[in-house]
């Protein structure tokens, strides 16, 4: 009896797993088909022609450079912000957290207008920022600013929840052993939240790489200076749909290569940080 009972149980569990997989597979299919369509609709010759397109390399170089800078700024400023938000209670902290998420819902073109209204030549800060009549708009820095604006919320969201998941007792213990708040943040908080921070950084970087609307509004579209790969794709779309498809595949290939590279590089590191007792013991041994 038990063996048939176990068999039935095993079969039922198998069925349940299959059902979950089938339902989830629908979404996978839905997400994969347009990507497949893009690849299938572009012949090898189109792709080669896309790679040889005069807009590709300056745009790719600019995209990589600007997203790297915006990622560094986002992580450098976003990590302390997330740490503070994760450990501050009260209405104002929640209001700040909501405020940080707002750029996610603002349509990118509107985000670009909002940035013009804040940092543009006639913006809120114009008199203070640009006494000489200089303006950040139409410069490569403007591309970076637009990318930070649209991508940083994704990092902060991931980082706040990563910091919140840390067992509070670990932080309390570290504090009890005399570690300064700065040391607790650096030696306990950061290592324990590392996987979440990395995931947030990857998501944020990917968003910055695909950024289009705010950049076009705030930074304009000039080859070599503000024309990132998404803008080059849209510019090519005006002339030749197939060139635009080929450029899109280049963009996806670059993204996949970088994501796989980053995942491989981080693959072992986060688990080490979590399982290691060193992260917790070091503050105790510290001065």
């Amino acid at each position, binding site marked *: 009896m038990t063996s048939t009972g176990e068999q039935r149980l095993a079969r*039922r569990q198998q*069925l*349940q797993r299959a*059902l979950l997989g089938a339902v989830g597979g629908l979404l996978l299919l839905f997400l994969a088909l347009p990507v497949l369509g893009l690849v299938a609709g572009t012949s090898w010759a189109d792709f080669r022609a896309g790679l040889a397109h005069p807009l590709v390399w300056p745009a790719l170089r600019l995209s990589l450079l600007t997203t790297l800078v915006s990622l560094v700024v986002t992580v450098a400023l976003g990590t302390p912000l997330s740490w503070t938000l994760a450990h501050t209670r009260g209405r104002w902290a929640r209001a700040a957290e909501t405020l940080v998420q707002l750029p996610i819902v603002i349509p990118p073109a509107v985000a670009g207008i909002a940035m*013009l209204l804040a940092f*543009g*030549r*006639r913006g809120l800060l114009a008199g203070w920022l640009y006494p000489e009549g200089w*303006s950040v*708009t*139409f410069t490569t820095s403007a591309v970076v600013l637009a990318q930070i604006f649209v991508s940083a919320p994704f990092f902060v969201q991931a980082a706040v929840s990563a910091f919140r998941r840390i067992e509070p007792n670990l932080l309390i213990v570290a504090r009890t052993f005399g570690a300064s708040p700065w040391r607790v943040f650096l030696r306990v908080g950061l290592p324990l939240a590392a996987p979440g921070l990395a995931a947030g950084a990857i998501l944020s970087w990917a968003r910055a790489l695909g950024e289009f609307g705010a950049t*076009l*509004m705030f*930074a*304009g*579209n*000039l*080859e070599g200076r*503000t024309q990132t790969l998404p*803008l080059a794709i*849209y*510019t090519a*779309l*005006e*002339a030749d*749909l197939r060139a635009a498809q080929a450029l899109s595949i280049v963009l996806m290939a670059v993204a996949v290569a970088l994501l796989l590279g980053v995942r491989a590089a981080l693959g072992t590191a986060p688990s080490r940080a979590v399982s290691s007792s060193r992260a917790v013991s070091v503050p105790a041994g510290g001065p």
Partner: protein
Amino acid sequence: MIMTPRLSTRFSPLRRLWLCAALVLLASCQQKEAPAPTPAPAAAPAPAARQTLTIFAAASLRDAFGSLRDEFIKTHTDVDIAFNFAGSQDLRTQIEHAAPADVFASADKKNMNELQQASKVGAPAVFARNEPVVVVAQESAASVASFADLPKLKRIVIGGPDVPIGRYTGQILDNASKSLAADFRQRVEANVVSRELDVRQVLNKVVLGEANAGVVYRTDANSAKHKVGIVTIPPELNVIAEYPIAIVSGSTHAEAAAEWVKFVLSLAGQALLQQAGFIAPAGPPPT
């Protein structure tokens, strides 16, 4: 207290899923069975079935076509009109991919001709022309007396090389290089800070004061005439844009589509177009 464990054994997760699915099905069946709200019995003979005419039109036609629609539906009470305004190139791509359009109105002949060659649209007719002009930001208006002063301005935005307005701008600059100064185009392009992807973006950058000047159509300039200065381009240098209109092949409302095209070409339609700043399809260019 006793019910809870029994419930959870009787309804395993899988069965609950099935139950949910069954409930959803049942709910949707009932909705179908629910009697549809019957329309009030009309004493008069039922009017012809309402139809929606879908018009794909270049972004620069937005205001003019809006007022044309208001007139058109007065005499065609059984027709609703849905517009899709975008860059002519985007609209062409959508029609190539079998978007359900009935009429296509393009801001240039190139996109229309390519659709016609692919038998995606019927024979086109030019229904309006539009004259490129220079718009100047208010603070720079004093320094530009004529088109020849354009190279003096530091931040110029123009359309991208494959956007219709950008193509016309290139031709105008070439004409100016031939008759005004050999390096005219070169000096202007040295001050170009962005090559925008549609004409409204060019206008926006000047309206917001980010750019000193840009080249747009007369109709766009008119829509912002209180916010920008308008400098006419000498007729001997200017390149007048021609707007063709055609019925999309396979339109399911071919009759209404033909009515719309007829109305656009009629005296009443032409008067409304000229109110918006368009030039009549034939006849001498304005002086």
